[in-house]
């Protein structure tokens, strides 16, 4: 295995230009250049890929067809198939989703005295949080401040972000790092305890904290272990995704119907407060892109929240990570962490020449790579017919010394090493991949939504990142707003008295579909993608 000869020929050019490139960095885009580039090459700007929603609170909002199909779909659940008088579990707080946001919320809600049920689709921790490699941002160094972080976040999001959410994000950030450490997270540090922090795309200060390149795994497994410390208060139900939210007769969200994935049996969970922490939707493969996301990232939370009338924000923008693996075939679409560029690796074309500043914001970096391949024809075509450009990882060994790649990027070394590619010596071939759902359910800084009883945190929420999230701000988002959701429900749950449970919102939904002249064949949430006999996932 490893690279075929013709690809090696291109690598030889990359090696030849390397000494020169070590002395020079491609200039950053100006605001005007960036806008023009995005409009021409970023997938969000492809008009045919989206359509206006025809029903629901976001009627008239544009979103990719794949998501629109699910938001306009019929329920999976037949209301007649469940008896709401027969409640299987009753609890103060139901958390839907066992990733970082759900786990942080569970810990905080328990601390406030709530009994918690966490329902999750796969195992607790099988989630996008587990896969994050690069790191988590927090302005905790002398030359940095929450205000500078604020400016970076707003600029990264195209100045469209909700300022109140961003304020919460950057102000809580150092607190979150301190909290994670108190739970036992091992961050990368100097011998004197100083956090090792580096740049990420769009940062003006080095504020990316990491735990080798298992940053998300370190956070996820620590939070999970903490949740497991409290089995009397937090009950985790795995392989039991929510398929529909429940309401009460006062118009409050009052729990959910879960489905046991193995027996297909429905479970009724009645809860005073319900937190959606279901993460993203990469497995919907917008515009046929491969994805970095875990198997359960199918946008279920958005679908369920939409049906009870919650408003969505920024659902017309998805994040395409500039560096998904393009070779070998077995790992196409999987993430090559931005930390590779953070450590100094450049992005170069088939001739070994730079064509973009290596740390533009992700939208611009992706658009530049697409332009290089599609318009300029300067990409390398793999044996299976996809294009890519080189990410010159061996530069890191020259800049920071031999052994750096192994030490800083063990997961990447392992990922490629399994297929005979040594990234300490050879570059990686990369192309943009579907990575992150920039938008989601609109929230306020305390994670409340338009609908009483419904709270949202993490990638399922929308507003904090505006139209483009910066690296390291999502792990942060997940911890900041996961904690906030837990704290908020901890304050609310004692005051709630629920009315009678109902699924009447599904009847209303059917009527709304009918009134709009729609007769969808699709049922949602889809829970899992179907890859049986499908090629090239």
């Amino acid at each position, binding site marked *: 295995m490893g690279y075929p000869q013709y690809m090696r020929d291109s690598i030889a050019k990359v090696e030849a230009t390397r000494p020169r490139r070590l002395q020079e960095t491609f200039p950053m885009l100006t605001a005007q250049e960036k806008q023009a580039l995005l409009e021409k090459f970023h997938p969000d700007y492809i008009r045919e890929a989206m359509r206006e929603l025809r029903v629901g609170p976001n009627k008239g909002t544009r979103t990719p067809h794949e998501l629109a199909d699910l938001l306009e779909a019929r329920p999976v659940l037949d209301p007649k198939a469940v008896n709401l008088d027969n409640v299987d579990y009753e609890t103060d707080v139901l958390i839907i989703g066992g990733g970082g946001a759900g786990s942080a919320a569970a810990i905080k809600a328990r601390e406030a005295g709530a009994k918690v049920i966490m329902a999750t689709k796969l195992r607790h921790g099988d989630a996008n949080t587990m896969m994050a490699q690069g790191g988590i941002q*927090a302005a905790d160094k002398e030359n940095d401040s929450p205000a500078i972080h604020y400016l970076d976040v707003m600029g990264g999001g195209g100045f469209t972000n909700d300022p109140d959410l961003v304020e919460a994000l950057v102000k809580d950030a150092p607190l979150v790092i301190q909290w994670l450490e108190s739970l036992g997270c091992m961050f990368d540090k100097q011998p004197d305890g100083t956090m090792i922090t580096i740049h990420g795309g769009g940062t003006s200060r080095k504020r990316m904290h990491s735990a080798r390149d298992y940053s998300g795994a370190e956070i996820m497994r620590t939070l999970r272990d903490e949740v497991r410390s409290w089995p009397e208060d937090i009950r985790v139900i795995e392989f039991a995704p929510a398929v529909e939210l429940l309401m009460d007769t006062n118009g409050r969200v009052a729990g959910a119907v879960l489905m046991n994935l193995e027996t297909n049996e429905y479970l009724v969970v009645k809860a005073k407060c319900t937190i959606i922490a279901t993460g993203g939707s990469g497995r919907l493969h917008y515009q046929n892109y491969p994805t970095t996301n875990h198997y359960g990232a199918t946008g279920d939370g958005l679908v369920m929240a939409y049906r009870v009338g919650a408003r969505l924000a920024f659902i017309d923008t998805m994040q395409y990570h500039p560096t998904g693996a393009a070779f070998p075939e077995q790992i196409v679409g999987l993430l090559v962490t931005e930390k590779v560029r953070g450590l100094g690796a450049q992005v170069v074309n088939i001739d070994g020449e730079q064509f973009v500043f290596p740390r533009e914001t992700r939208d611009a970096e992706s658009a530049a790579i697409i332009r290089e391949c599609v318009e300029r024809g300067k990409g390398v075509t793999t044996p299976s017919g996809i294009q890519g450009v080189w990410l010159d990882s061996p530069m890191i060994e020259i800049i920071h010394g031999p052994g750096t790649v192994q030490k800083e990027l063990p997961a990447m070394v392992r990922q490629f090493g399994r297929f005979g590619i040594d990234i300490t010596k050879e570059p990686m071939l990369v192309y943009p991949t579907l990575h992150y759902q920039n938008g989601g359910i609109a929230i306020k800084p305390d994670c409340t939504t338009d609908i009483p009883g419904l709270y949202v945190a993490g990638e399922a929420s929308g507003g904090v990142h505006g139209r483009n999230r910066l690296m390291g701000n999502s792990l942060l988002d997940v911890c900041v707003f996961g904690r906030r959701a837990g704290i908020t429900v901890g304050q609310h749950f004692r005051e709630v008295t629920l009315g009678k449970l109902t699924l009447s919102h599904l009847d209303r939904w059917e009527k709304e579909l009918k009134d709009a002249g729609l007769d969808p064949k699709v049922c949602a949430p889809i829970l899992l993608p179907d*890859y049986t006999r499908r090629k090239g996932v």
Partner: protein
Amino acid sequence: MADQELIPIYIMNKQYLVPPTLTIMRALEYAGYKLIRGVGCRAGFCGACATVYRTAGDYRLKIGLACATLVEPEMYLAQIPFFPAPRAQYHLEELKPDMSALLKTYPEVLRCLSCGTCTKVCPQDIDVKDYMAEAMRGNIAGVADKSFDCIMCGLCAARCPAEEKQYQIAILCRRLYGKYLAPRAEHLHKRVQEIMDGKHDAELIRFKTMSKDELKKAYYERDIEPE
């Protein structure tokens, strides 16, 4: 797939023909399984997809992550989506970062035979035996460092003749290290205090109340910390 030869593999002893370029996970799907168990991240990070297999003519039992291992002809495979190795019940604040913590939670740690079966099966190539030796010496920092890349797939525990739960011991040690032993980041605690004292509010409010154009200007003119 017509131009490609299919190879026979055996999923729980039933033969299927699959393309040789697939990972075990994709081969299972190609064979028609819609996976529920034994799949998570699909990228080698979550440990959901531990798989054991043998190949024809080889006596050895092999292991791999289904999402990161290529199929081979005549591969006999089964997934181990779950292995009972529950975490001990503890609260981190009640433990001290030394041998006493391990003896309280996983006293069987001392039964380790140092046979090295765990090291042989680890799909992350971690020297599990070595960190277990550190554990037996009560060296929490050693276990934390050497086990860091663990994805908790559970294969070590599944194969251990001494019935250890290595990966559970490892995460306990990492958490103890992170909480109690790692050198303290003074700048972090200082910043948290400043924020609590409201020292950063004024600067934040200044940016928050700027017009969009002013904010843009501030953004494009901001200085960037050099590499």
